[in-house]
């Protein structure tokens, strides 16, 4: 985030609005004893953070609004920086609130809203909420360069999954619950499976003559296993809302695709860049040139070293 803000600073006409996904209360820095994630802001930046963090700010800022809803660390304070300085940011803890907050930040004058995320809470990167995503990777993912490249390129591949045809997209766009298949004429058939987590009970419904299946929720290893074990597994096309709904492991997902299966998304994520931090929070340093070179070999979008 600091890297992106630093770059944005050279465009004085663009006012940024900053927030982040909420943390669930436990101050992780107390557990891992690592440095608190402070963000450095320039003057005239809009930001939203919890009351608790607002009190310990290291910046002069003008309060613009206070939320009615509460997070575990208090209400959300939206304000505008007057000086430069540092602040810890923690925002809404659910997607709907985050979406509203993004609108609010734009309402008070932000030209672009940046949401700090976390790989474990990637659903916030869903294209229904944010328009574009920057993926941050580096020494915090793993200390093994090979593992970093593998994990990062998997996420990249997921963001590159093709979007489903427009005709089908329009039909399933509003389906928020359930699992559906599509016949030859693209008619939507409700498979009446209450949850993918109960898939064992409803196997028979999944294995029908129609192989295009839309999962409104998540897809898991168990589900992919079930399909991979079918003779006709190569005919299956799985459709999910967006890449954040894919909870299956890299191995299973790749196996499914290698066997001829397809995964499409309703909303494609616009991954615009990858930033790499070669230093971990505990202070370990990786060979950044090697890491970035290896990443560039498999990922064709801009990759930045934030330490440059």
């Amino acid at each position, binding site marked *: 985030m600091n890297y992106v803000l630093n770059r944005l600073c050279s465009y004085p006409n663009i006012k940024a609005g900053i927030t982040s996904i909420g943390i669930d209360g436990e101050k992780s820095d107390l557990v891992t004893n690592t440095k608190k994630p402070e963000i450095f802001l320039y003057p005239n930046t809009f930001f939203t953070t919890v009351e608790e963090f*607002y009190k310990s700010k290291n910046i*002069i800022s003008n309060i613009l609004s206070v939320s009615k809803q509460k997070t575990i660390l208090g*209400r959300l304070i939206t304000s505008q920086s007057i*000086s*430069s300085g540092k602040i810890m940011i923690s925002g809404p803890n659910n997607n709907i609130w985050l979406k509203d907050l993004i609108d609010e930040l734009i309402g008070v004058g932000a030209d672009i809203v940046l949401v700090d995320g976390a790989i474990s809470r990637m659903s916030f990167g869903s294209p229904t909420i944010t328009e574009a995503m920057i993926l941050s990777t580096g020494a915090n993912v793993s200390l093994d360069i090979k593992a970093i490249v593998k994990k990062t390129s998997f996420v990249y591949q997921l963001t590159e999954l093709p979007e489903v045809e427009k005709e089908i997209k329009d039909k399933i766009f509003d389906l928020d619950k359930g699992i559906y298949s599509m016949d030859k004429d693209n008619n939507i058939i409700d498979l009446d499976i209450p949850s993918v987590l109960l898939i064992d009970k409803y196997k028979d419904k999944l294995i029908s003559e129609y192989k295009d299946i839309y999962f409104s929720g998540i897809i898991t290893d168990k589900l992919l296993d079930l399909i991979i074990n079918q003779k006709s597994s190569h005919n299956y096309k799985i459709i999910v809302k967006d890449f954040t709904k894919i909870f299956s492991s890299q191995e299973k997902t790749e196996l499914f695709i290698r066997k001829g299966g397809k995964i499409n998304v309703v909303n494609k994520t616009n991954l615009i860049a990858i930033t790499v931090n070669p230093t971990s929070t505990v202070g370990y340093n990786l060979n950044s040139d090697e890491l970035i070179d290896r990443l560039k070999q498999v990922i064709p979008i801009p990759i930045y070293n934030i330490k440059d």
Partner: protein
Amino acid sequence: MNLKKAIETHNGLKFIINKLSLSSSIGRQALMELKFIKDKSILERELEITSEIMNFLSIDYNYTRIKRIRSVLECINDISGSIKLLEKDGVLDDVSLFEIKSFSLLSEKLRDLLKVLDIPELKLPDLDKAIEILDPEKMRLYQFYIYSSYSEELREKRRLWEEAKAREESEEKILSIYVECLEIEEEIRKDLSSKLKVFIPDFILSLKIISKLDITLGKAQYFIDNKFSKPEISDSEFSFKALFYPPLEEILKTQNQEFQRIDFSLDNKPVLITGANMSGKTIILKSLSLSQFLFQFGFFIPCESSQLCIVEDILISIDDQQNEKKGLSSFAWEILNLNTFLQKAKQGKKYLILIDELARTTNPIEGVAIVDTYLEMISNTNSFSITTTHYSGIKTRCRRLRVKGIRKDIIKEEIEIKNIQNLIDYSLIEDNSDQAPNDALNIAEIIGVDKDFIYKARNYILNKEE
């Protein structure tokens, strides 16, 4: 008794309260704290204000103004916590100061919007002086921080801090200047908090009036939409024209059926209502208790016109699922209720006592005796009493009403459980006999009970009569 307590025991009242659309959280909170009004002049004034607001809402010309009032109300925040802190000489933080400033600005906006209303109870205090304290730059914006214009010293320190950062001095040095800034800021907060203390009564008054405004707008709109009417306050009698029970009316509407509205009047003679099963006796009692609650919380009544008396309390004995019997049998629960009601009534204050099918769970001989005795005792008090019964042979002198029951012009073959609502005439008629109607078997037949059973039961009655 407050409204929160009352809705716990009365589903009909809860139904209506839940339908009110209020804009602010302080309004919603104050709604639950509304008091059961026993003072005639307070109640009269409350009903008048509601009437005036209804007029205000009904004028097309006010549309934009009302919309603006509502949107201000939606933004109103509850500053009562900050006020309590001020009362205890506490120092407010930036967020609380921001909230007080926003509240005051919004309150001023409302004061302006309400100027066209001539209701002294809704006249907001002038908070301009309080705003001045929190708005040294006179921008009148919904923003707040410790402005440099509060103190030259602060302005200077902040400048030094910026310079230190620009010169990239040591973190320690930068931090120590920042801490100095914070110290000055804290002094300013102390000063602002003590200056604001003077306005505590105005803030409290403003919170109270804004809540009242929100509640009154909410109920007035509901009364317009649902055709409730303003009750008249009487000293001695009750009367209703076209009374209805909104929760049931709504259910019937979804089934494309109409609720039959009833006329009803009552003086201080006890009333005994008879009627067949399913004839709506319980609903009559529920409508009456609902109306009385609404009336004494300063609401309008679901009817065309009405007259009601102010009572000390509404005493209800209706045995449905919402009652908690605390492990007692139906009879013990009911008879203990009855005992309490009589004890209260004996003390001379006016109560409205509504009892559904008194003593129905016991044998008819003792049951009749209980009803008779109750009616006799209650007629010697100042309370108003309405009792329903299935029993024939009640001898006590009282006013007797009967639900008309199954319409005589109905052809039996057309009757089905689905349309049974339409087959019963729910209106109340004066009845001079002491015989309760015997429609139980007719109703049982209509709702499809085994024909053989009905035939045998009818024979049983015939044999007995012979």
